[in-house]
C-alpha cells in the first residue's frame, strides 16, 4: 500500500514525462496488438476456407504445386478437363469437382484491393465441397445457368451487388442470382459462376485450374494422391491434409514474424521506461539517501522503483491493448471500405490481450531492474550530500 502510494506520487510528480512515457510504450504495444489481431484474423479466415472444405484431395497444375493455396493456380497454369474422365477411373476416387478460377485484376479500379476470385464451378460443388456456405438471398448455380453468378458477402457489399444486377467479365455479362451469408472465410471475397461460362469468358474452354476430389477410403487418400501425381505429370495431387499442413507451415512463418515484432515492441518499451526511470531516480538520489538514512531498507527502495516502472508499463499495456484493438478495427474498416479487402476480420481474443499485457509486465519489470538495482545500492552518505 505504502509502496503503491509512494510510486503513484512519484509518477505524478513529473506528469508530462510520465504521460509521454506511457504514450510511447502504449504505441509500441498498440502496434503489436494491431498486427497480431489482424494476422490472427487472417489466419482464422484462411483456416475456415481450407480446413472446412469437403475435398479429400486437391489437384492443381504441376506449376502450382508449391503454393499453399489452390487459387494461385489461376496465375500459373491450367490443365484439360478430359483428364477428369481418366482420373475418375483411379480406384479410390469417388468424385471430382472441376473448377476454373480467374482473378480479374481490373475489377474495380477505384478500389484496388477489391479483387474477387472468380470460381467457375458445377452445381454440385456447393453441397459437396463448400457445404458450409449459406445463401443470404437468391439461389445457388443451377445446371441450366450460363452467365450467372453467386457472390460472397464481402464482395457483394463492396461492389454493391444485388439480386438481378449484373457484372461484366471479359465482355460477358454475368447476372447475380445469389448472395452468400458471411462465412468469415476467403469465400466472402469470391464470386461463383457456372464453369463453362467462366471458361468461355476467359477464352479457356475445357481448361481447369484446380479440382477437389472425394475418395472412398480416406485412409488411402495419400496413396491415391501419389498415384494421380505419378500417372499424369502435368498435374499435382495433394491430400487436403497436406494442404492444411503446408498452410500451417506458412502460418508458422507469420507467427515467427509476429514474435519478432513483439520483441521489437518489447525493446522499444524497455528503452522508453528505462530512460525515464534512470532520469527519475537520478533526480531523487538525495531523497532516497534520506530514506535509507531514516532506516528504510534497500529492498524497499528496489521495490519502489520496480513498482513505479510496473505501474507505468501496465497503464501503457491497458491503453495499448484497447487502442490496438480499435486501430485494427479501423484498419479493417478502411481496407474493406476503400480497398474492398473484405477477408481481413481482426481477431482480438484473450491470447492477444494477454500478450499485450504480458509484454507490458515484462517491459516494466526489466526496465525497472537496472535503475532499481543502481539506486538501491547507492552509498547513503554520498547520496545525502548529492546535489
Amino acid at each position, binding site marked *: 500500500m505504502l509502496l503503491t502510494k509512494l510510486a503513484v506520487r*512519484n509518477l505524478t510528480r513529473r506528469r508530462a514525462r510520465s504521460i509521454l512515457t506511457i504514450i510511447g510504450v502504449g504505441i509500441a504495444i498498440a502496434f503489436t496488438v494491431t498486427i497480431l489481431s489482424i494476422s490472427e484474423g487472417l489466419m482464422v479466415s484462411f483456416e475456415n476456407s481450407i480446413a472446412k472444405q469437403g475435398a479429400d484431395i486437391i489437384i492443381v497444375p504441376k506449376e502450382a504445386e508449391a503454393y499453399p493455396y489452390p487459387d494461385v493456380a489461376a496465375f500459373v497454369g491450367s490443365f484439360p478437363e478430359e483428364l477428369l474422365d481418366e482420373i475418375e477411373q483411379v480406384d479410390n476416387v469417388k468424385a471430382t469437382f472441376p473448377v476454373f478460377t480467374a482473378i480479374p485484376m481490373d475489377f474495380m479500379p477505384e478500389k484496388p484491393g477489391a479483387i474477387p476470385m472468380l470460381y467457375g464451378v458445377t452445381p454440385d460443388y456447393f453441397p459437396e465441397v463448400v457445404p458450409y456456405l449459406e445463401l443470404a438471398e437468391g439461389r445457388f448455380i443451377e445446371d441450366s445457368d450460363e452467365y450467372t453468378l453467386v457472390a460472397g458477402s464481402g464482395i457483394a457489399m463492396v461492389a454493391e451487388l444485388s439480386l438481378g444486377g449484373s457484372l461484366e467479365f471479359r465482355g460477358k455479362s454475368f447476372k447475380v442470382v445469389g448472395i452468400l451469408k458471411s462465412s468469415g472465410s476467403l469465400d466472402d471475397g469470391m464470386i461463383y459462376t457456372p464453369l463453362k461460362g467462366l471458361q468461355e469468358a476467359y477464352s479457356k474452354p475445357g481448361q481447369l485450374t484446380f479440382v477437389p476430389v472425394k475418395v472412398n477410403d480416406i485412409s488411402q487418400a495419400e496413396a491415391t494422391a501419389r498415384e494421380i501425381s505419378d500417372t499424369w505429370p502435368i498435374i499435382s495431387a495433394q491430400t487436403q491434409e497436406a494442404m492444411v499442413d503446408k498452410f500451417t507451415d506458412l502460418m508458422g512463418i507469420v507467427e515467427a514474424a509476429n514474435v519478432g515484432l513483439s520483441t521489437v515492441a518489447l525493446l522499444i518499451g524497455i528503452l522508453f521506461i528505462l530512460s525515464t526511470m534512470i532520469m527519475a531516480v537520478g533526480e531523487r538520489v538525495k531523497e532516497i539517501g534520506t*530514506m*535509507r538514512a531514516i*532506516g528504510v531498507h534497500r529492498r524497499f527502495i528496489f521495490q519502489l522503483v520496480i513498482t513505479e516502472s510496473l505501474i507505468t508499463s501496465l497503464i501503457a499495456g491497458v491503453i495499448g491493448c484497447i487502442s490496438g484493438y480499435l486501430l485494427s478495427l479501423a484498419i479493417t474498416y478502411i481496407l474493406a471500405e476503400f480497398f474492398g479487402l473484405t477477408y481481413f476480420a481482426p481477431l482480438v481474443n484473450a491470447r492477444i490481450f494477454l500478450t499485450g499485457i504480458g509484454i507490458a509486465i515484462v517491459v516494466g519489470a526489466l526496465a525497472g531492474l537496472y535503475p532499481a538495482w543502481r539506486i538501491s545500492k547507492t552509498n547513503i552518505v554520498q547520496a545525502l550530500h548529492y546535489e
Partner: protein
Amino acid sequence: MNEIIIETENLSRVFTLGGQDIKALDGINLKVTKGEFISITGPSGSGKTTLLNLIGLLEQPSGGTISFEGRDVSKLREGELDNLRLKQMGFIFQTFNLMPTFTALENVTFPMEITRIPEKERLERAKTLLERLGLADRMHHKPKELSAGESQRVAIARALANEPLLLLADEPTGNLDSNTTKEITALLQQLNDEYGIAIILVTHDNQVAQAASRTLRMVDGRLD
C-alpha cells in the same frame, strides 16, 4: 541513571583520495549517556560529520568499534543497521530533506509506516508531535509551502516519530536565519528535557553549541 547508549573505542575512518590516505577520524573514544545533549564543533574538515555518520551507522568505520546500548554494532549486517536507525535513531539534516510529495503529516507518519505501527496510532502520534512543535495548522501542507523554520520542525517531528533513544543533528541550523536558529536550538533543548532523548549536534555555530550540556571540539579527526 547514567546508562551508556553509545560508546566508541579507538574509532577511525580513513578515506583514500587520489591514492593518498586521509585520516578523517583518528582514534575517537566517546561515551554518550542516555538523555545527554552533546554538541560537537570544530573547523570544516575536522571530521565532525564523519563522526556523526559513523555513530548514526550510515557508514562503516575503518577501525575501532561502536557499541549501541552495550552491543558492538560495527559489524552488524546491513538490515540490522537499518532497523537500528529506524527505531532507535532520529536524523536531522541541514537541508531538512523532507519528502517533497508528502504533506507534513505524511512525512512524520512515514517512518512509522515503515515500522508498521497501526494507522490510528501513527496518525495520533504524528499529530501530537506536530502540535507540540507548533505546526497544528501546517499539517496538510507540502514542504514547498512551508518556511525553512517550519520545514526543520517537521523534520524534527519525523526524527522523533519512532520514539528513538538518540537524535543526530548535522548542522540543523545551517540553513536558518538567526531568529529561527534560536527557536530551533531552544526547541532541541526542550525536547531533550521533556523526552529525555539524547542528542548529538554537529554545528559551526558556538551559540548553538552552548545549548548542549557537553560541548566537544574536534580538530584534525581527533577530539580536543
